[in-house]
């Protein structure tokens, strides 16, 4: 319990840097930044592994308390965001899909429509946009809630009551965010593709709904479904890990919370982009 958080924190003990003398040159500064980045990666890795361990080891423990919290997090990172995502899907359809369909039709390249839609919407824009929006809406709330709880000593109170903070606070957020991003991505993709055709239809593009969706389904392979699921779940897992790590793993004061929230969102975006790059490589290799 206490050890779980302490292990992650001791790996990235930034106290060393807080007490260190100011860098004397740009090389010193660069070296220090690089070292800090490596320590953060190490800390995040340790925190991710600890959370995964607790998730697997304690999945049957205190279910009457943890399951309602998981439902709450699924609602917060998924169901509650659905209206916003319907709007985003419509906007994405009108702005990107409709114009792409229209442009391809003008040059007589409608044969490439399916594969273009799959690459742009299903593989890239859908998951990445969903991840960034959930990071902005729920990830920041995570850091602020957990950072405030940490600053007010609520984490120590949990430990004093024999409650594992990782199990009680982190695991529901990780599950909620992973399932939330997965589900919202599906809705976003379906909504964007449907509204895109409506936009194209309004522009008199000679494409029947049957041809449009047939091309898309023909361009989709089993790998797209598998990697889409894997990618969205990974986005959710790592966004939750980054935001919870910054909120919880280090002792904070109240005045630190806003600064840490900004850092967590920046690192969350970087993690999403890096993960996306990994999946691009996977698509290219397979």
């Amino acid at each position, binding site marked *: 319990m*206490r050890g779980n958080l302490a292990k992650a924190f001791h790996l990235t003990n930034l*106290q060393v840097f807080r007490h260190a003398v100011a860098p004397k040159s740009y090389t010193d500064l660069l070296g220090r930044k690089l070292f800090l980045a490596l320590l953060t990666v190490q800390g995040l890795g340790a925190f991710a592994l600890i959370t995964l361990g607790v998730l697997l080891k304690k999945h049957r423990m*205190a279910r009457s308390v943890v399951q309602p919290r998981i439902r709450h997090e699924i609602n917060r990172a998924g169901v509650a965001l659905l209206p916003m995502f319907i709007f985003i899907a419509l906007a994405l359809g009108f702005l990107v899909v409709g114009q792409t369909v229209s442009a391809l039709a003008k040059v007589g390249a409608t044969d490439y429509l399916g594969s273009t839609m799959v690459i742009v919407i299903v593989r890239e824009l859908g998951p990445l946009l969903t991840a960034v929006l959930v990071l902005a809406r729920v990830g920041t709330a995570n850091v602020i809630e957990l950072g405030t709880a940490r600053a007010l*000593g609520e984490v120590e109170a949990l430990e*004093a*009551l*024999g409650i594992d903070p990782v199990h009680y606070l982190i695991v529901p957020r990780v599950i909620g965010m992973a399932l939330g991003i997965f589900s919202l991505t599906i809705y976003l993709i379906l909504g964007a593709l449907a509204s895109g055709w409506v936009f194209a239809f309004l522009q008199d593009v000679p494409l029947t709904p049957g041809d449009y969706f047939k091309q898309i389904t023909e361009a989709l392979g089993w790998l797209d479904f598998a990697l889409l699921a894997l990618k969205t779940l990974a986005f959710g897992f790592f966004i939750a890990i980054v935001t919870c790590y910054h909120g919880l793993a280090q*002792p904070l004061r109240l005045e630190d919370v806003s600064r840490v929230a900004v850092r967590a969102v920046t690192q969350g975006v970087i993690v999403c982009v890096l993960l996306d790059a990994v999946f691009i490589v996977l698509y290219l290799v397979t």
Partner: protein
Amino acid sequence: MNEIIFNPAVVEMREASVSALRDTTLAVLENVNWSVLSGEFWVVAGQPQSGKSDLLLTAAGLLLPARGSCHVFGCETNAFGEAQLAERLRVGLVFAGGQLFSQLTVAENVALPLRYQKNISAAEAAPVVAALLEMLELTPFADRTPANLAAQWRSRAALARALILKPELLLLDNPLAGLGTRASQWLLGFLDQLWHGHEWLGGQPMTLVASTDVFRPWRHAQRKFAVLDEKKFSALGAWSEVEAARSPAVKELLAEPAGTTM
């Protein structure tokens, strides 16, 4: 033939160096040698920032001593892990500000440890929680969140949360801080009941350790007293020894707090 009664130490610190919670590289107390025996009621006094909270966190096993050892119910706190959960749950800790969970109501705060440890639903925990809230006169505040509670009710709710699992050792961090005369008298009376064996604990006497920044409200012939001063822990013994002590630190802590007459 005289019967020998073996009274094991509930908390035992040997040459322990107590670290600060906010910066574990900083030692707030050095070479603490302290034994709390079963059924004792200790009052540890010290000025603000003297390390009272950190001492209690160390005694609860939440902070590891930087040097030396700390045993709680015979188990070294360094080894506290999942396997030692049962030992840990024999210790209750009431934080100075209550540290209630801000998102939960008073009733949910009190129910949480019971529901988590026993894996029971809110409905199953409700009768136990209601009885405890009734005992601590918290029933009218059951559905309020901590932000909507006065300080005295927050600390009482924190006490209820610590008592729900019926611990054998109760650590209270400055429980009289911010309380008025009547609330302080009620709390001292209630702690005495716990010490001598409350019906909530099935009549079993409880071991208590309370920290304070003023000695006098805690005056009692059978309580034991200690003082923290200049990174040192000094066990004084009974009240008569507190009054007889010549140390300026003790004299300062003996001064009558303004507005308190008990």
